[in-house]
């Protein structure tokens, strides 16, 4: 934490696989991005009818490297346990697509892209405010780029689940099955509050330089690390932290106010410092704002069920019992609103002590449920 970080900025010029749409995109905020690049990865092969595609939407700080090592960060695929040959999302059956979200820092257009209005500069904090719906509109371009008229399924956890909801509502004809996992249809005051701590930590870092840190060869590492530490607490349950660390001491000798004494402290610091190696602070600001702005009911006159009128996809909602960030009540409310709109919906809460992050971890019950749901849908879609 206290050592200097590697100064290679996250999300620079690494040659991620990507496609650029020069016609640009109109954003919810009213501004237009004149050109949009989408970095993506695919797994498996698209069948002749182009009917076996599954789009995976990644979470806040995820990326397109779902089922393989990220070549830039060296980290293993974030959903290796769910996506792959023979896995719940079986790449021998399905063609899997995952794109880095708009505003991200892994090759898609974001705050680190060239400024459209100031030649030679980067967007930085000038990057337009984007929404979950904007992210999905850009993903739609990519899907069409593959010539796919209808996705067999759209699957995502956490912020990815918000995108799944947006897909099913914005483009009902393009989604056969939708799986929002550990998701929410709006960001609660508590969710926003935790994000705001993170943003304030970044702003307070003297290296932030109004978002123009790249030009000055520095990075707001302390601020971003604190943001990650705060967020990380919300991703795990109290039970998981207690089990992993309890009150275990890290450094029993040399008691001092400045040093860390408890194991959980150095664990959190590790989480923070490893995060700043791979993520960009301006992207973090942009994407947290996008999730904070998400409120599917408000966008449709206040009643969530009204948002779902016209939705055609079959739904599976999964929540985890110890998730307090996007608790079961959120998923249940979505399921009920879908019922009210006469949508075909399955819903289950998986018993897990791991908190919100359970969707990323080894949860056999969840994986079996997802696999079975997709198999049932494949039968209905004539894919089996």
């Amino acid at each position, binding site marked *: 934490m206290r050592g200097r970080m590697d100064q290679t900025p996250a999300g620079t010029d690494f040659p991620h696989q990507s496609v650029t749409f020069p016609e640009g995109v109109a954003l919810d905020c009213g501004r237009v991005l004149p050109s949009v690049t989408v970095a993506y990865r695919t797994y498996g092969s698209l069948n002749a009818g182009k009917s076996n595609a599954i789009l995976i939407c990644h979470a806040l700080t995820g990326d397109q490297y779902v089922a393989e090592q990220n070549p830039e960060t060296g980290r293993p695929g974030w959903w290796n346990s769910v996506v792959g040959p023979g896995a719940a999302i079986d790449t021998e059956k399905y063609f899997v697509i995952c794109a880095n979200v708009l505003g991200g820092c892994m090759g898609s257009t974001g705050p680190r892209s060239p400024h459209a209005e100031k030649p030679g500069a980067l967007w930085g904090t000038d990057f337009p405010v984007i929404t979950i719906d904007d992210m999905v509109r850009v993903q739609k371009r990519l899907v069409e780029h593959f010539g796919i008229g209808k996705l067999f399924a759209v699957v995502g956890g956490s912020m990815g689940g918000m995108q799944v909801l947006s897909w099913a509502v914005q483009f009902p004809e393009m989604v056969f099955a939708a799986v929002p996992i550990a998701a929410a249809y709006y960001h609660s005051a508590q969710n926003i509050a935790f994000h705001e701590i993170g943003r304030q930590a970044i702003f307070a870092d003297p290296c932030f330089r109004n978002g123009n840190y790249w030009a000055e060869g520095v990075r707001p590492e302390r601020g971003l690390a604190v943001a990650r530490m705060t967020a990380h607490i919300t991703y795990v349950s109290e039970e998981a932290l207690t089990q992993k660390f309890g009150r275990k001491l890290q450094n029993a000798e040399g008691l001092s106010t400045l040093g860390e004494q408890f194991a959980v402290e150095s664990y959190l610091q590790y989480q923070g410092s490893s995060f700043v190696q791979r993520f960009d602070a301006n992207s973090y600001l942009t994407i947290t704002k996008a999730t904070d702005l998400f409120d599917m009911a408000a966008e449709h006159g206040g009643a969530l069920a009204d948002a779902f009128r016209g939705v055609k996809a079959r739904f599976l909602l999964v929540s985890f019992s110890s998730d307090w960030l996007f608790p079961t009540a959120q998923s249940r409310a979505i399921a*009920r*609103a879908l019922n*009210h709109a*006469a949508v075909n919906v399955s819903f289950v809460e998986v018993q897990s002590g791991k908190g919100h992050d359970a969707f990323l971890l080894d949860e056999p019950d969840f994986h079996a449920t997802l696999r*079975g749901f997709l*198999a049932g*849908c494949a039968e209905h879609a004539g894919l089996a």
Partner: protein
Amino acid sequence: MSGERKIRVDLALIAGMVQPGSRVLDVGCAEGQLIEHLTQAKTCDARGIEIDMEEVQRAIAHGLPVMQGDADTELVTYPDHAFDYVILSRTLQAVEKPREVLRQMLRISTHAIVSFPNFGHWSLRLQLLTRGRMPMTAGWNRMWYETPNIHPCTIKDFFALCEMDGYVVEDWLAADEQGLRAPWRRFPRLANLFGEQGLFLLRKA
């Protein structure tokens, strides 16, 4: 989904009341045997609600559309006339508000199919009469203080409720514990004495 399986006899009786191609909601569907049967053998759009998480997981993992929830609280979330049939099998006696659940069933659906264990069966009456204790049988096998069956009723009671709330009994029969049809459908009084389960097909008047 595996191929067609032989389903429980009492479920087969229920399935016999459902027209092919209908929209069906099975409340308390367990791991979804009836839904699967209705989907495959009768080309129904069949879904389920089940309160037990493990059963729900098994049903979904089997490819069946099932929602975890409680009949008492979940039915209100469906729109009017969403289904042709709502099925409540051996569950009415265990819900918090049976009358309200029935009302909701016939709000969201044209027909309701309801089965319940008949508390008027002679063996229960005899036990209560001779021993003076709550009866214990194969069907009623939990002590009064731990039974989930908090609202037992007889076939006669159920007829009375249907009349009071204005439901038309389109079809009914009494069956034994295994769900085999007992020959009592023409004679409610005898059915009430000898039928272990009542099975009713209702609609609104």
